[in-house]
C-alpha cells in the first residue's frame, strides 16, 4: 500500500465518535499539553451543524493555574487564534458553524487545530507567580514608557546590599518599587518583614533634594495580606495594589 493510500485508509480511524448528553462527541487524536485528549462535540439544530468544545479547552487551561483571570496578553492571543481559524468564542466555549461548502473533516480539523493552539497558551503561564507579576510590572512600565531598571542593588546604612525590584525615573520623580507577591499566608509575614528591613536600611535616600520615593506594590490578586502587613509598610513607603494599576501610574508620575 502506498503512503497516500495508507493515509486515506487509516486517518479516519484516529477519530472516534460516541453520544454524550445529546451531542456527538468526536474524540480527536490531538492532545492538550499534559497529554489529555481533546474532544469536540457536534450539535445539529434547525439544519445547521455546529462544532464546539463546550468549554473544555479554557477549562483545561484554568485547571493548570491558580489565577482567576486570563491576562490581557492571553486574551489578545485568544482573539488572534479565533481570527486565524475562523472560530467564535462565546461563554468560554469555542464554536464553529459547519460550512456546507467545506468537507466535514476539514471543519473538524480546523476547530481541533484552534483548540490545540488555545491550550498552548499554557506555555505562557508563569507558574512561579512572583516572577510572573514582576514581568507584568515590567511590561506595564514599558507600556507607559516610564524608564526603569530592574534588580537594582543599593548599599544600605547597615552596609548590606539591598536588591530593589524596580527603579523608575521620569522628569518628575525617581521611585524604588518592591513587589510583594506570595501564594501563602505563612510566607506573607516574612516577605513584609524583609521589605520593612530594606526600606529602613535605605531610608536615608528618601531625604534631600534628589530624594527617592519608596513604593510597596502588593499583589492583591490573592487574599493573602493582613491589615497589619499593609500598615507596617504604609509607615515607610507609599502603598499600591496591582489590582489598581491606574493608581500606580499616578504615583509614579506625580511630583514628589
Amino acid at each position, binding site marked *: 500500500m502506498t503512503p497516500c493510500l495508507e493515509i486515506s485508509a487509516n486517518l479516519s480511524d484516529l477519530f472516534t465518535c460516541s453520544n454524550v*448528553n445529546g451531542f456527538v462527541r468526536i474524540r480527536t487524536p490531538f492532545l492538550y499539553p499534559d497529554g489529555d485528549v481533546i474532544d469536540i462535540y457536534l450539535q445539529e439544530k434547525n439544519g445547521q451543524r455546529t462544532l464546539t468544545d463546550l468549554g473544555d479547552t479554557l477549562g483545561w487551561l484554568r485547571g493548570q*493555574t*491558580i489565577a482567576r483571570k486570563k491576562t490581557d496578553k492571553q486574551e489578545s492571543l485568544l482573539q488572534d487564534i479565533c481570527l486565524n481559524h475562523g472560530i467564535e468564542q462565546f461563554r468560554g466555549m469555542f464554536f464553529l458553524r459547519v460550512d456546507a461548502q467545506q468537507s466535514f473533516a476539514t471543519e473538524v480539523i480546523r476547530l481541533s487545530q484552534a483548540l490545540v493552539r488555545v491550550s498552548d497558551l499554557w506555555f505562557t503561564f508563569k*507558574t512561579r*507567580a512572583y516572577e510572573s507579576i514582576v514581568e507584568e510590572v515590567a511590561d506595564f512600565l514599558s507600556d507607559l514608557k516610564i524608564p526603569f531598571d530592574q534588580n537594582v542593588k543599593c548599599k544600605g546604612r547597615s552596609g548590606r546590599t539591598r536588591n530593589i525590584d524596580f527603579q523608575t525615573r521620569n522628569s518628575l520623580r525617581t521611585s524604588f518599587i518592591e513587589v510583594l507577591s506570595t501564594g*501563602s499566608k*505563612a*510566607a506573607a509575614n516574612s516577605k513584609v518583614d524583609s521589605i520593612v528591613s530594606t526600606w529602613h536600611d535605605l531610608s536615608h535616600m528618601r531625604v534631600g533634594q534628589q530624594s527617592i520615593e519608596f513604593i510597596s506594590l502588593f499583589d492583591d490578586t490573592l487574599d493573602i495580606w493582613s491589615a497589619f502587613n499593609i500598615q507596617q509598610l504604609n509607615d515607610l513607603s507609599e502603598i499600591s495594589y496591582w489590582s489598581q494599576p491606574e493608581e500606580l501610574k499616578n504615583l509614579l508620575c506625580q511630583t514628589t
Partner: protein
Amino acid sequence: MTKRIEGDIKWSEDEDHSPASEFRVEVLSDVGYPLFLKGRYNPLTSKLSYHIIHKGVGRIYGLDLGQDHKNPDGTYVGEKHKHRWTILEKDKVAYVPSDITALADTPVLVWQQFCLEAKIKHDGILQSPLPFQYDLFLP
C-alpha cells in the same frame, strides 16, 4: 494528615460564564506550602476534575473523570485518571486510581474519595455544583 481545607466550599461560575462550575480553595499545611485546590465540573461534557496546584510549580496532583489521557509512552489511560507530578515527566504521566469509584456526575461523592486518597482533611462540606440551564448556553 497535614493538609487541610477549612470551611464550606461553594461552586461558582468562571470568568467566561461557561457551562462549568468551579471553585478554588487554599490547602493549608503545617509547613506552609503555597497549595491551592481547584475543582471544575462541566455538566455538558460530564467532565469533573480536582487539581492540587503548587503556586511555584503548577499542577502537582490531579484527578480527571470523563477525560481520556495519553501517556508519553503512547498508552491511553482512560476516562478516569490521576496525574502525579514527577521531576522527570512533570504531570504528563497519569494512572488509573482504583480508589475512586464514584462517577463524574456525583462531584460531592468523588470529592470525599479524592480527599481521602490525597490525605486532605476538609473541615466543612462541599456543596453541590450550580444548577445548569441548558437553553442559556446552546439555544
